[in-house]
């Protein structure tokens, strides 16, 4: 058995590398679709604005995608490096799922991204558009497979166990497991939404500064259009996902709602849990709201508490609760802003509302925060299991010495800290430099002689 310290260190390492990796797809999936749309719009209208948009967002996409690839490579090997026993047990099921992800999605993206980034002037514009769509399609496929694999760990289905190893009995059930039906749409919407806030926030910054106005207006309009469409849907899908988890992983819901005893009909805003005594040291709540959210309009129903779960199967309430609050409160803010955007559009003031633009700038990372919070809830709320109800995290780890695990963790923390700094600085620089100025008159002369 590996020591408890090795388990802890490996968990931290996985959490850090996974969160870090997650922030890149959270932007690049949505950006890839925006790029494909912009280039297609350019082909159809020949409006240079769309080319300007394509080239600008491509700069950010290129670096984000590259960093996402290398951070993803780390994840692929980490399953075996730190979680050897887990890898051995689930390899015949999840190894196959992720293998399919690599062959169908990863190669598609990697194969076409070279053309998309460096193909201008080398291939026909039509091919550029095709490559952009293929990259976008690849990122979507990738999201699908990864969510399938992770959902299987949340709610395993379609398997048999032979000598401590999982085998697929029915691949359809493995891939499209019950949790997948909820978690995939939730995550897909989340990545689209977070990319929309990202581009919308940057566009709003240009409007605040009164620079590159056409570019900024076009981008902001698309971003807020997407958001007004998707935010309410996302709240609904999220609610359904939480309800599903309440059925299939009751402990997770109990932990992220922050109750110990099942005697509270309020909605907790802040809790200071004391897991040792099984009660909250501090609790700030809105009375009756918890019951209302749980579909009881009389406001009397009690939200289930964590004491219903045996002590050795309880997740950490701190991380589940605050991860969930980070996601949920950000989601409410996002909804309010998207709604305000809709109202401004109806009143014809979308491009002139200065105060709204300033707020939008602050919303740039909102989607990333919500996604991170959501994943913290999903993953720590599943503990102490790595495959829910089947393999405990403490049994999943490789035979590593504590020193090895500590060294690698330190290495990842150091390298990723540098990477975050460089990435943020890069984005800031690109944004400050602004979209390239396309000289429209010379372009027109080139065509008309």
């Amino acid at each position: 058995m590996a020591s408890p310290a090795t388990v802890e260190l490996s968990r931290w390492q996985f959490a850090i590398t996974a969160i870090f990796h997650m922030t890149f797809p959270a932007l690049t999936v949505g950006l890839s679709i925006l790029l494909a749309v912009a280039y297609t719009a350019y082909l159809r209208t020949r409006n240079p604005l769309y080319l300007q948009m394509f080239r600008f967002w491509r700069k950010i996409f290129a670096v984000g995608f590259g960093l996402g690839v290398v951070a993803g490579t780390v994840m692929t090997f980490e399953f075996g490096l730190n979680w050897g026993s887990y890898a051995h047990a689930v390899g015949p099921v999840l190894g196959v799922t992720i293998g399919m992800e690599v062959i169908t999605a990863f190669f598609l993206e990697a194969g076409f991204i070279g053309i998309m980034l460096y193909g201008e002037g080398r291939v026909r514009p039509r091919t550029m558009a095709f490559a952009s769509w293929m990259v976008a399609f690849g990122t979507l496929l990738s999201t699908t497979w990864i969510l399938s694999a992770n959902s299987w760990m949340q709610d395993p289905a379609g398997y048999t166990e032979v000598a401590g190893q999982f085998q697929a009995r029915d691949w359809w059930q493995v891939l499209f497991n019950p949790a997948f039906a909820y978690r995939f749409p939730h995550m897909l919407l989340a990545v689209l939404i977070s990319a929309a806030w990202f581009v919308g926030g940057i566009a709003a910054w240009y409007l605040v500064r009164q620079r590159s106005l056409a570019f900024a207006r076009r981008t902001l309009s698309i971003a807020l259009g997407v958001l007004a469409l998707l935010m309410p849907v996302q709240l609904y899908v999220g609610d359904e996902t939480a309800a599903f988890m309440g059925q299939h992983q009751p402990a997770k819901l109990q932990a992220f709602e922050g109750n110990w005893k099942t005697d509270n009909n309020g909605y907790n805003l802040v809790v200071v849990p004391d897991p040792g005594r099984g009660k909250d040291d501090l609790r700030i709540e809105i009375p009756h709201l918890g019951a209302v959210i749980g579909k009881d309009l009389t406001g009397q129903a009690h939200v289930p508490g964590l004491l219903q779960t045996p002590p050795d199967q309880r997740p950490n309430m701190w991380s589940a609760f605050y991860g969930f609050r980070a996601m949920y409160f950000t989601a409410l803010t996002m909804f309010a802003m998207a709604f305000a955007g809709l109202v401004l559009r109806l009143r014809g003031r979308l491009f002139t509302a200065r105060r709204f633009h300033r707020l939008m700038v602050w919303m740039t990372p909102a989607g990333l925060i919500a996604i991170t919070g959501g994943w913290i809830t999903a993953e720590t709320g599943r503990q102490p299991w790595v495959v829910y109800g089947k393999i405990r995290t403490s049994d999943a780890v490789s035979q590593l010495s504590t020193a090895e695990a500590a060294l690698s963790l330190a290495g990842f923390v150091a390298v990723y800290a540098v990477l975050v700094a460089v990435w943020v600085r890069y984005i800031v620089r690109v944004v400050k430099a602004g979209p390239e100025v396309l000289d429209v008159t010379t372009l027109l002369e080139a065509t008309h002689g």
Partner: protein
Amino acid sequence: MAEYASYALILFALGAYVVLDGYDLGIGILGLFDRNDERRKEYTELVATAWDANESWIILAGVTLWAALPGIYATVLPGVYLPLVVMLLAFVLRGLGLEMQSSAPGYRRGWGRLFGVSSLVVTLCQGLVVGTVLSGLPQHGGVFDGGALRWLTPYSGLCALGVTALYLLAGAAWLQAKTEGSARRRAGRLGRPLLALTVAACLVLGFGLEVADPQHFRFDQPLRAVLFGLLVAASAGCGALAWYGFGREPDARPFIAVLCAQVAGLLALVTATAPVVVPPGLTVHAAASPVGSQVFLLIGIGCCMPVVLAYNIYAWWVFRGKYRPPTPTALAVPAKRVEVHIDLTVSHIVVKETGLWTVARRVGFTLLGLGMLAVAQDVFGGQGEWIAPVALVLFSAGSLTAWLVGDRRAAAAGQFEIDRAARR
């Protein structure tokens, strides 16, 4: 039978990785020893168009290993923990250096050095891993039990140097194929010494394997011995062709020869060791997944592989021939004049508002927002399952209409025209 097919697939992915990423790692290291910034920028651009796809092969190799031979994946990776982690970290830094370099207009020495050094570290670590695996990982019931520094042996050290020489060779061969002028001449000159170094490393490592590896090679089986002999001969022949081709037209010859030599060499190694994958005793059979998983994986990957190869070859074909930076005129795609129709009926009409109306409007919109929020949270789900979906569809239809109409108006008012916006 299925496990051999899976093993073949893993070897194919691994071989593709060594052949493809080998050259771009080699170019990265060669860049460290070049003092001309223009050439170094060219090297980076050469790598930048292809590295995503090249690196994907090691991910495929890793994942198919996990899916098809989980026994090996779970034993080997913890056994070479530190070199592999360092390799991954170097991968990350390499990607960073490369992307920052290629997104910068000129040549940035700092990013260039990061790219070069991390390429070297990746290569050395891969050598260490290969050396450790070849010389055997002690394991007990599928669990590695050899200690944290098992990978630190003279053999694995030598192997690291050998892999470096091999990648440098592949890098030089690729540069001869893809560049012109002084870069091509340099690559042609470097080729032969690097080839000699690689051959020397292969000989030392090959004979050293007997000593380092406790397994018994079964060359008494005639088929195996003959096959092994043929593959080694083919590899040597290709090596000789590469020797002849460096610095001579056609420029693609050295790389093709090196590629064939690598493939033949890898196959020779497998011929000598199969069915053992990791010495001393971990065989393909012992480590394999259940047949069902392997068949699913093989069918899935088998169906996709032709497509994957097709578009990889297409992507390669787009950037075929000598590297040339795209000309600015090629980048400026000609634009058609956009006809602007200003629709007078939708131009802005400012309505004078009274205070009461403003308050009413704000209250109304706030209530609508809160109502939509409550509906989206499925608060009324107890009253009727249909309420939330129906309300969402209506709301979405409304906001979509608002979006499209708003966009059309803005476009008609010229708010999306670059030149008009600039003039304003």
